[in-house]
Every structure is written in C-alpha cells, then in structure tokens.
C-alpha cells in the first residue's frame, strides 16, 4: 500500500488532538509542556508532508521545520525555567494551584 498525503495528514491530525487532549486534561505542568511538544511536532509533520507531496522541487517546508525545532527547544528552556520558579513559589507544579493571576 502506498503512503499518500492523506495518511500522513491523518497521522498529524491525530497527533495534534492527542496533544490538545493532553494539554487540556493533565494538571501537571511538565506533562502539559510535553503535550505542547506534540502539537508542535504534528505541525512539523504537516510541513514535511506538504513539501514532499505538493512542492517536491522546493525546500521551504523543510526550513520551516528546522526553525520550529529550534524554537521548540528554546521554548522548552523558557518553560522549564518558569516551571522551576512556579515550584519555588507554590511548592507544587500542579496548574490548578497556580491561579492567582486573575481579577
């Protein structure tokens, strides 16, 4: 069976909604961060797939993917720094405990 664009898009959509589900349901901040990584990677898969199947002579999708990986790394660093600070202040990394930023 040949792998078509639709298969890959199905995969990435599935991955995306797994990420969304994880982000909305998990209370642990680190798990939420991991869910975000899933979201990003589903986008990466989309880029690669479109690049390969629709514009095979170009490299734009690949470049975007590289950028996204770099940004994801930076974002993880920042996020973990924030998480450490949250832990120091609240003695917890449960997102339900961190709800003081409101009216």
């Amino acid at each position: 069976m040949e792998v078509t664009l639709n298969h890959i898009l199905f995969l990435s959509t599935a991955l995306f909604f797994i990420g969304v589900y994880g982000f909305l349901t998990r209370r642990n901040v680190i798990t939420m961060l991991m869910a975000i990584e899933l979201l990003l990677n589903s986008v990466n898969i989309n880029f690669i797939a479109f690049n390969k199947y629709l514009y095979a002579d170009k490299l734009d999708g690949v470049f975007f993917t590289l950028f996204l990986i770099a940004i994801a790394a930076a974002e993880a660093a920042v996020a973990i720094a924030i998480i450490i600070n949250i832990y120091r202040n609240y003695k917890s990394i449960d997102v339900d405990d961190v709800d003081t930023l409101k009216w």
Partner: protein
Amino acid sequence: MTGDFKIILIPLLPLLSFLLLGLFGRKYLRESSGLIGTLSLLGSALLSVFTAYNYFFVTGKVNGIYQPLVVLQQTWLEFSPGVSIDMGMMIDPISVMMIVIVTFVSLMVHVYSLGYMKGEERFATYYAFLSLFTFSMLGLVLSSNIFQIYIFWELVGVSSYLLIGFYFDRPSAVAAAKKAFIVTRFADLGFLIGILVLSFGAETLDFRTLIERLTTATPQLHGMITTSFLGFSSLTWGLLLVFAGGAGKSAMFPLHIWLPDAMEGPTPVSALIHAATMVVAGVYLVARLFPVFAISAPGALHVVGYVGALSALFAAVIACTQTDIKRVLAYSTMSQIGYMMFALGVSGYGGEHGLGYMASMFHLFTHAMFKALLFLGAGAVIHYVHSNEMEDMGGLRSKMPVTHLTFLIACLAISGIPPFAGFFSKEEILTAAFEHNKLIYGIALFTSGLTAFYMFRLYFNIFWQKDFHSELSDHHGEGPWSMLVPLIILGALAVGAGFVPFSHFVTSDGKELETSVNIVFSVAPVLFALTGILIALRLYKSENETPARLANGFGSFYQGALHKFYIDEVYLFITKKLIFNLVGRPSAWIDKNIVDGGVNLSADLTEDTSGLIRNWQSGNLQQYAMWFFAAIIGLVMVFMSVWK
C-alpha cells in the same frame, strides 16, 4: 542688569535674610536668627538713608523739580514684541520717603522683637516672615509699573497673613489671619480689574508712561474718557477700582473689618505692618497715581476724599468705646489713614493746590513714627501686664517710666499738640481741607478732638487710675534694653519729625512748596484736641462713676459703637445668610448631585459591567486554553462557511 547696585540691594538684603532664615533658620541658626535679620535690615536702612540723601540733595533735582529716576528696567514676560511685563525699580520723592520709613520702622521692630519674642518657639520663622514682609513692602514702593506693584501687593498680603496667624495654635488668630487675607483679597479683585482697565486704556503698564498719557491730551486719554459704562467713564471706573484695592489694604470703610482682628498677631508685627507700613500702601497707591486722579478724574478723587473722611470719623467713634488697648490703636490707625486719604481727596495738582498731597505724605511720615511708637509701647505694657484689657492695667507710670514717657509723647503727637510731630502734618491736612471742602474740614476737626479723647482715655487707663500689683510682673521689670531703645529712638522722632521741611521734598509736582504754620488757624484744632484731653483727664484719671453714667446716657449709640456699629454682623449676614443660602447651597447641590452624579454614574456603570465579565478571568490556565481552542474552531468554521 543695569542700575545703581546700592539701591537694588535695599530690597535684596531682606530677601536674602528671608531665604537664609526660612531655609536654615529652624535647624542651624536658632540663636542667631534675630541678629541676622536685624543686621540685614540695618544694612538696608543705611542704604535707604544714603539713597534718600543722594536723591534729595544730589541727583534727584533737575531744574528745581524732583524727577523720577529709573534705577532698573528689565523685560520680564514678553508676550509679543511690544507687549511685555517689565520688572523695574523707580525712585521718586514718595518712594524714597517710603523706603526710609519702611526700613527704619522695620529696623526698630526687628530690634524690639529681639527682646519681645525672646524664647519663642518659632523665633527664626518669625524673623524670616518679618524679612519677607520687609522685602515685599520695599518691592511694592519701588515698583516701576502697575503690574509689578500688584505682585508685591499680594506678597505683603501673604506676609501679613503669615504674621497675623503666627500663633496658629490659637483659633482666634487663625480666624483673624483668614479674615484679613480674604477681605483684602476681595478688594484686590477690584484692584486687578482696575489695573486691566487702566492699562488697556493707556496701552501701557509703566507708571511714568501711564501718568503722562492719562494727564495730557492724548488719544488714549480721549478714548478712556469717551468710553463710558453705567454713567462713568472707563477712566473713572479704572481709578475707582484701583482705589477699592487701596481701600481694602488701608482698611477704609467698609472694608476695614479685618484690621482690628489683625491685632491677634504679635504686637511688634502690629506696629510694623498694621500701623506704620502695609496699611498705608493704599494711600501710597493713590498718591502714586495722583496726577491721573487730580487732573483727569476729579470725580474719583472726591470719592477718595469722602471715603477717607467717613472712615476717619467712624473709626474714631468706635475707638472711644473699645477696651482692648491694641484694638483702640487699630481703630486709631484706621482713623489716621482716613486723614491721609481725605487729604489726598481734597488736594489739587501742582503748586499751592497740591497742599493736600504734601500734607497726606507728611502725615504718613509722622504717623509711621508715632503709631509704631504707640504699638511698641503697648507691646511693652502687654509684656509687663500679660493682658490686652484696660481693666487689668492702671498706675503703671512709676513701674515703667521709659514706656510711660514715650507713650505720652506719642499720644501728644497723635493728638496734634504742638510741637510734636502730629501737629505739623495734621495742621497741613486741615489747612488743605479748609481751603477745598468745608464739610470734610468740619469732620476732620471734630475727629481730631475725638482722637485726643480716646488716646488719653487709653493713656490714663494704662498709666494712672488704679494701682497695679503683680508679683510676676515685678519680677521681670519693664523689659530688656532691646525693647526700650527703639521706644526712645521713636520717641525722639515723634518729637522731632515735624520739623522736617517736608514740603521742600515731597510735593505733587516735584517743585518746592513754601508752607508756614498759621497761628490763628492752629487755634481751633489745638483747642479741640485740648478739650478732648481735658475730658479724658476728668473722666479717667482716677476711678469714678462718670464714664459708666455717660455710657448709659448715650444708650444705644454707645452700644452701637461698642459693637463696632455691627459691620461684622452685616458682613456675616451677607455672607452666611444671603450668599451661602442663595448661591452657596444651590451650587453645592448642583456639584453634589449633577456634577458628582455624572462622574459616579460612569464609575458605577464601569463597575457593574466589569463585575459581569470578570468571572471569565478565573486564573485557571486550562480553562483559558479551552476557550482558545474553542474560539479557533469557531473561527475556522466561520471562515469555511464564508470561503467555501
């Protein structure tokens, strides 16, 4: 900066001492503040005397006429080319006379206060305020334009306010300070409008140009005379409004109500500000614009004359009934300023007709000396007795010999007994009044009798009548040398000041004027004065029943005078009953309900709306994310249905 530095230094020295004492006095210069203030004033006084000598005998006279000299002229605020407000200093006979009076009396008061205010908690502040006042007053008299005089006019008002309210822990002093400030401020509103009218008409603020344009046939004068409003020309309006400001500062009827209350201030302050210098600022102002009054608007000058005469009589009657010695002196001040005012009112311009002008300035000069002396003497008495009331005094002549003698001299001077200072100046005033207005002459003559009566009523009540005993008072004696020396100096001047050939120096047109004392003419006023003294002697030299019976005899008239003819009550009625109820309360209602209501309404609306939506902000991250995704999905749906 151009100009004679020596003259510029005269107001500058008190200003420097004010800054020094005001900034560092309380912390660092506590002990020496009196000395610093006094020394800077001594410098000012010496420079003033030097300036006076220089002006009157060396530089001032050109072709036998004293010319105004501009010492300093500096553009201060330039609005557009040609329209600017300047700062300048001008000396002419009256301003030179005034700087000598102001610095001299101020120096006396500074020295006196070294003893009187000793041990006072806010000693340095007191001297800082005194310096501020002296600076403002000197600036006022040296002003070269009408706007600048207004600035300094307000400054003396402020320093007067500060000094009346010096004992701010006494509610009565606070009330008096506020009253003085508000009443004079109200009068100054007239002054400001007057300035605007005059300077708009004359197209200048500068005194010399203004006087020149409004006394000779110029388009400006023509314009001001022909524009009329409610039956008066705009020139008359302008001058009357300026006079209203002067009347407020000089405590003329009916704006006098603040002056008696101003006696809440320390006594040396009363001597300086509310007797010798600040209160004559109104007279000075009219004198400054005198050519305009006399030549172009005789109608306005008549108003000045009648207001002055009425105030003189009115205050003298009240003074006869008061029992607080400082209040008696306050009313006497008002009465004497009335004399100066009506002397200006009956004067013409130039030569023999200008006698009233010269007499007014002469009286200002002599009055400053003997009235300062009276107040300082009263201060010494209060210092000794610890009371302001005549009741508590009596028989002090042996206990306070220096005060007794100088006070007697001052009483004789103010009553116009020859050869004391007041006699000469009062004589000139009465002569001028006699020649120009018989009604005012009559009032003045009667008032001079009253003056002698109430002054000697005061004198006998303090120094004769009953005997005074107090352990406390015997303990500290008459007072330190710093209080007695000014009394002696001023006493000497109250005798000698009348012999100054004043008419050679200060006249309406700058030319010398020959005056002579006419013996026949002097008989009437001196007789009146002597009668007043004899009545006072008969009634008050020893305790008896006659004054009380007389008071009963006068009945309601006596009660009226005792209550100052209910002028304060009239003011209270107008302000509290009429203005508060008819203007104040409605505007307060509008402010509370409509203006504030509008503001509150918008605030309430905002609060209600935000109350509705603020629950969206739960602080729960995943809830936000939920909304976020839902919104994205919603948007995607919308886009997909639009661009199929």
